[in-house]
């Protein structure tokens, strides 16, 4: 899907990000009674103290993982629209396995939690991939449908059968303290998970650009027919990219639970699936560019949250922010010199 046309590419990313930024600036006076103050806190938000900076980096790390999930999917030429459900399932899977085995020692428990989250996300996405491989079921729609049905199912589980009746929130019980990831920058939420995220970004880069499977995945993503003529088992790559993508999303849910949430609260991972798409597109589906892309996006989002901190709009503003970025990020503001027929 990505086509490199450096100048135009850079320009459209610039437009997307500045459009989102402008929108925030325009909205501030309407929402806030002290626009000047809100604006200042928006711009300096993450850098006010170690606490804010730590939380900012923690959030950016989770979003980077979600972005990485979409990089894998886009590079393989597949659309995984099920991120929301995959993150949520990963979070619930991790929480449940650690609630069932509360007496595990710390490190093995964390590892089992991570693997469970990864597998639950991979399984959920893998179902869509499997049907695409087997019967050519459109994965864009099927992954969305499956994920949405799971989001509602988990919402129900968390508010009903799995609910901890002693907590005020609609939430499962908390996992044992031994399973919490060590904090790097107390009192913020920034934890060891960020190192795993950086390793995964590096690993994804190695996988995509320095391994034969990664090469085949990219070639299949660029042109399925060409890949087929080249002897690549194309059908396998109807399954692999989306499953890897689901695994990353699941892991993101898992890291959220181990590092910050400690329990699956209703809607706790909402928005991460869509953010992943926005970030992967800002990064033009390159693994290393995920780092600046997730920082920029998190900054914008933190700004939005900051601006509306006194009203109950965090979900709505998050959604509009994602919408503005997504709307412009793939646009091409310069016309290519030669008109290519059949180009998207």
């Amino acid at each position, binding site marked *: 899907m990505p086509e490199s046309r450096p100048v135009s590419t850079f320009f459209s990313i610039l437009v997307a990000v500045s459009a989102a930024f402008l929108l925030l600036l325009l909205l501030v006076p309407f929402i806030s009674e002290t626009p000047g103050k809100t604006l200042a806190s928006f711009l300096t938000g993450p850098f006010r103290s170690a606490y804010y900076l730590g939380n900012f980096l923690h959030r950016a790390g989770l979003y980077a993982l979600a972005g990485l999930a979409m990089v894998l999917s886009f590079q393989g030429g597949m659309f995984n629209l099920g991120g929301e459900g995959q993150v949520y399932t990963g979070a619930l899977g991790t929480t449940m396995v650690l609630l069932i085995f509360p007496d595990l020692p710390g490190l093995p428990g964390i590892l089992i939690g991570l693997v469970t989250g990864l597998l639950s996300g991979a399984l959920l996405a893998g179902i869509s991939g499997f049907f695409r491989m087997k019967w050519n079921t459109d994965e864009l729609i099927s992954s969305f449908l499956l994920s949405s049905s799971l989001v509602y199912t988990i919402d129900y589980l968390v508010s*009903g059968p799995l609910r901890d009746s002693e907590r005020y929130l609609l939430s499962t019980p908390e996992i044992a303290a031994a399973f919490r990831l060590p904090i790097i920058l107390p009192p913020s939420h920034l934890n060891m998970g960020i190192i795993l995220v950086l390793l995964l970004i590096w690993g994804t880069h190695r996988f995509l650009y320095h391994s034969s499977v990664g090469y085949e995945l990219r070639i299949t993503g660029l042109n399925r027919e060409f890949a087929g003529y080249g002897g690549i088992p194309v059908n396998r790559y109807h399954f692999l990219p989306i499953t890897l993508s689901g695994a990353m999303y699941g892991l993101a849910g898992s890291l959220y639970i181990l590092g910050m949430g400690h329990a699956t609260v209703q809607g706790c991972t909402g928005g991460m699936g869509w953010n992943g798409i926005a970030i992967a597109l800002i990064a033009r589906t390159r693994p290393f560019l995920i780092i600046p892309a997730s920082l920029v996006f998190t900054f914008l989002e933190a700004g939005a949250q900051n601006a509306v901190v006194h009203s109950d709009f965090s979900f709505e503003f998050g959604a509009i922010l994602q919408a503005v970025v*997504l709307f412009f990020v793939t646009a091409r503001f310069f016309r290519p010199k030669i008109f290519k027929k059949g180009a998207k």
Partner: protein
Amino acid sequence: MLHSIAGIMTPFLIAALGGLYTERAGVLNIALEGLMLIGAFTAAAVAGLTGSMGLGLFSAVLVSGLGSYFYATTALRLRANIFIAALAVNLFAAGFTGIASQAIFSTKGVVRFEKFPVLPRFSLPLLSEIPLLGPLFTDQSVFVYAGWLMVPLFAWILYRTPAGLRIRAAGSNETALVLRGVSPRRVRERATVISGITCGIAGASLTFNLGAYVPNITSGRGWIALVAIFLGYKRPGGILLVSFLFAAAELLAQNAQGIGNIPASLLLAFPFFITFIGMVVFSALHTSLLKVIRKIR
């Protein structure tokens, strides 16, 4: 039974008919859900404040139509990825309706209106006396009948008029259109606006049927409409049949709630799940059918 099915299927049927045009013109329109939601909200706001159903419907069509025009022209002219742009429309609709609802009615929750117009229901004289099929034409709302009428109308336009020919050509043979001096991009833009208009009608039908506005009132119906287009073999008649089946499944689920004591919150998952199953079963049948045909040949 049949009576309720007709009511349930109408929103997806109407939205899917418009979506069919974009699909045939070569654009997979995943923005149906968002366009429907915007239509539903506009209809509720305008009809609730003015008390006029006609004005509510008109503005729903206007806003969804303009919205789809903006989205289609921007995305197609800037050659943005159309799925991503459509995704943006869906996310925008979800965020915007929440904020607008708070701004206009000071609540993000259910909005009830004092002078909300009541949706007129009536029976069609002769048709309602047909054995078996009678309930489909008895005591139904205007929207149900509009849906019935739109199926042959949309089929006629698609297969028997130059405009329909252009829509089909934009999807199947772009070069032919270019050689005739017609811009495929324009055809796609217009098809998307038509889908915006039908989504406006479909959204309005949801609000008027309920007599109130509920957040996220569409709850996946746009996606069901999209799947109905595929499963209906991209034909108006097929869409009618698939919408009927989905509505029957939804009714069954609603009834199961009473018997099996299924909690209401879990029921929200059901339309998505049944649509997913429908999609998988269809593609499995379709693939094996293709294999059989190949063997015979």
